[in-house]
């Protein structure tokens, strides 16, 4: 150390008493060094630096306000991701405590020179956890300059509040008042082979498991690279099994910073027998030193074994825990790029073809038995596609998030959702349908007789030109009727389609101009190096597809659901169904009876999902048929925007949704139409009533209900 500092401490000087200031990981590393094992040289940025960073920027209260917008128990995983993103953006934009930058610069120069570095989280809270939750916090690998260190430091601090950490907040004892984060700054040892060792295999306690990859262990730890796996007898060290992966890849550091994945299939196994024996021996020594089985990360560089981390093995029971599903949604850029053609060229066309086949079948001509068979088949097909939606389409939506994080890391905008402006204006299926809807409304607007004719039964359809356009719309999209989109039973007159058309026709022509989209060229010009620009372009391309398909998949799945509901409606018409058949997703329970003492909501806090302010009467949509009553300028209030509902969006003045998230279908649609939108209002449909004068503040995420 140049001079004593409350912010920095060399790793080797830490002791067991240092945990509150240096975190569990750093203290364990120091323990390894004291035990004679080789660790990469480095120091720790103490929790005092984190706390001073918060206090010098007034972040404590901002953090608390962000985390207390609503009860955690009411938050969906998308909302946790949103909160994590906002906190990360907040951290990235704040200056460091006075003196820290200079001290870091001096310490790095003195201790590590110009060697590439790795910054790793070391949270004091992690040790209080009953189980180990690897991967909740960030590590930044191959950091090559002081500005990059300062950036990485903020990223690791912010990861204390990552969505993953928030998901496991109870297990890791995450509390805004006491939580803190130290950061280990070490030389990056770019070994030839790296991996993890479980001195006692979690599945076979009599064995030791060693997993190894070529290059850095970054890809192995986060699951991106499949390792070679050896199982050894815990007593003798004898190799019992060697599993070879289908392909071998390696994660290597790049000259400009960061890492890249390369093919390593031509290489043999990353470890030879003597290295396996050395590792096994070290594992035995560590187990003896700490008294419990160990989970050890290591790397070999020029034949020398470096220990990167050692901690007690813990197991987590994930049964029935859907948080693992959420964390599995986070796919890499290359994985998502590989997924895109499968979705766009295989799955969506197949789903669309099936929806059209189903819609073409005349259910009314089927005998009862066949109709019931068809109903069961359609339900099974809907369940199948719903499964595909969850397993494949939803993970693809992560493309927007990948881009958002990249955008914010590089541009540090005031608005953490500014990246969405680059994605709007895509050719969404729902907008194409609504343009045709507007064209039909335009035909009515231009001809009052035609318009008045549609008010009655079927007389509006006597006009051959309009009738042809109307039927063409129904053939393509269904008549938007009560049961479901895609239903073709109604003939005009009182159908939802007719009602919506009449309401649209009474308004001035819709403004279908695309929302303002910033220039992509300007965005890409902001990246100095060709490598970064290329990365930015790939991420933007992926995010645009992810944004577009987030709408399209909903629309097509809605048509499959519609086919099932149409069969259900036909079976119900023939009295073939038992009471309470399974309902579609739009349907909801009716409101409960009014209480004697009425408690009225006046202002509700949700998430600002699309900017703007709009006031108007509320229109609560619990069931599809409620949409038929929608009037221009009303604020659509619903549980969740369903693909079957988006045809009513051109009439809406704003959107309020119970389901939370900035990137959900409803928020995307709202942005496309320039409508203010607030999502994540618990019990929105219960607390607001149709006709209530409300104001949607899409800047702050507030819905105000005026007293009438």
């Amino acid at each position: 150390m140049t001079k004593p500092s409350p912010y920095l401490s060399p790793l080797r000087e830490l002791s067991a008493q240092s945990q509150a200031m240096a975190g569990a990981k750093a203290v364990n590393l120091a323990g390894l060094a004291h035990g004679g094992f080789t660790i990469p040289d480095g120091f720790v940025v103490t929790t005092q630096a984190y706390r001073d960073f918060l206090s010098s920027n007034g972040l404590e209260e901002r953090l608390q306000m962000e985390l207390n917008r609503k009860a955690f128990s009411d938050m969906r995983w998308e909302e946790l991701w949103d909160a994590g993103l906002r906190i990360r953006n907040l951290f990235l934009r704040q200056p460091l405590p006075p003196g820290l930058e200079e001290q870091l610069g001096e310490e790095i120069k003195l201790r590590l020179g110009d060697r590439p570095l790795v910054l790793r989280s070391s949270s004091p809270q992690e040790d209080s956890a009953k189980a180990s939750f690897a991967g909740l916090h960030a590590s930044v690998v191959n950091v090559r300059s002081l500005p990059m260190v300062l950036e990485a430091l903020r990223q690791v601090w912010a990861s204390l509040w990552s969505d993953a950490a928030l998901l496991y907040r109870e297990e890791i004892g995450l509390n805004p008042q006491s939580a803190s984060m130290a950061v280990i700054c070490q030389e990056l040892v770019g070994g030839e082979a790296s991996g993890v060792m479980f001195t006692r295999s979690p599945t076979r306690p009599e064995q030791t498991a060693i997993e190894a990859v070529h290059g850095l262990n970054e890809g192995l730890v986060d699951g991106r690279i499949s390792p070679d796996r050896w199982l050894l007898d815990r007593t003798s060290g004898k190799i019992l099994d060697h599993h070879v992966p289908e392909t071998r890849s390696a994660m290597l550091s790049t000259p400009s910073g960061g890492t890249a994945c390369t093919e390593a299939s031509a290489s043999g196994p990353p470890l030879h027998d003597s290295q396996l024996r050395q590792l096994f021996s070290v594992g035995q020594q560590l187990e003896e030193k700490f008294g419990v089985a160990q989970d050890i990360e290591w790397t070999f560089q020029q034949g020398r074994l470096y220990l990167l981390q050692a901690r007690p093995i813990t197991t987590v029971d994930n049964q029935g825990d859907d948080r693992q599903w959420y964390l599995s949604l986070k796919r890499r850029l290359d994985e998502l790029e590989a997924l895109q053609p499968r979705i766009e060229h295989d799955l969506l066309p197949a789903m669309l073809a099936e929806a059209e086949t189903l819609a073409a079948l005349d259910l009314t001509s089927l005998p009862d038995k066949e109709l019931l068979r068809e109903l069961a088949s359609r339900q099974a097909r809907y369940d199948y596609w719903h499964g595909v939606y969850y397993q494949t389409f939803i993970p693809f939506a992560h493309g927007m998030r990948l881009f958002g994080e990249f955008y914010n890391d590089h541009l540090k905008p005031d608005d953490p959702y500014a990246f969405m402006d680059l994605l709007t204006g895509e050719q969404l299926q729902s907008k194409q349908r609504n343009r045709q809807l507007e064209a039909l409304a335009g035909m009515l607007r231009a001809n009052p007789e035609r318009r008045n004719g549609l008010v009655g039964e079927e007389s509006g359809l006597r006009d051959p030109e309009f009738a042809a356009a109307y039927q063409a719309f129904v053939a393509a999209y269904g008549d938007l009727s009560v049961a479901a989109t895609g239903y073709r039973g109604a003939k005009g007159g009182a159908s939802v389609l007719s009602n919506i058309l009449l309401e649209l026709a009474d308004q001035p022509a819709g403004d279908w101009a695309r929302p303002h989209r910033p220039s992509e060229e300007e965005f890409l010009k902001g990246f100095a190096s060709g490598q970064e620009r290329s990365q930015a372009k790939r991420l933007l391309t992926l995010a645009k597809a992810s944004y577009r398909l987030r709408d399209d998949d909903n629309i097509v799945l809605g048509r499959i659901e519609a086919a099932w509901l149409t069969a259900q409606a036909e079976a119900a018409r023939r009295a073939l169904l038992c009471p309470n058949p399974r309902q579609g997703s739009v349907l909801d329970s009716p409101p409960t009876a009014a209480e004697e003492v009425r408690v009225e909501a006046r202002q509700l806090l949700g998430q600002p999902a699309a900017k703007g302010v709009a006031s108007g009467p509320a229109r609560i949509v619990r069931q599809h048929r409620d949409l038929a009553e929608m009037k221009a300028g009303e604020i659509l209030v619903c549980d969740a925007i369903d693909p079957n509902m988006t045809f009513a969006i051109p009439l809406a003045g704003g959107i309020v949704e119970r389901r939370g998230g900035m990137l959900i279908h409803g928020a995307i649609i709202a942005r496309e139409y320039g409508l203010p939108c607030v999502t994540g209002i618990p019990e929105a449909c219960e607390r607001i009533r149709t006709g209530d004068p409300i104001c949607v503040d899409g800047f702050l995420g507030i819905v105000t209900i005026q007293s009438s």
Partner: protein
Amino acid sequence: MHDFDEKYPLVSDRHKPENTRADIARLLGGQRLGVLSTCHGQDPHASLIGFAATADLRRIVFVTPRATKKHRNLSHCSRAALLIDNRNNRLADFHEACAVTAEGQVEEPQGSEREEALRLFLERHPHLAEFAHSPSCALLVIAVASYRFVNRFQHVVEIRFD
């Protein structure tokens, strides 16, 4: 605890206007929140707000969404009162706590005056930056006409600026 009292013993018992003024300044400087009273016809309303006062005590800045009842009331009647106190919800509050009620005309400043008011507000409430900058919010200023300062349960002193 009454940090404010411990650090700055009240001096207003000496009955000098400058001492009362100093007490008010300390109370305003020691508190972040106050209760704003507005009224429209027969519809009174009280709401908790974050505020910041200018050094000369003549102006008090606050921010509110335009869709709120207080903003609606103010657009009909621009006079308002703001209560600021240092009670701690303890029995001793009856003799220990002090309170001040500012009363005046509420205005929405423009241009450089607005910038200065915003700077003052954010200096006091940096965590409310997003809120204060939101286009859906109004930054308002109470042009204070008078303060009524209360301590020792019922001891009341008034300062008037007009």
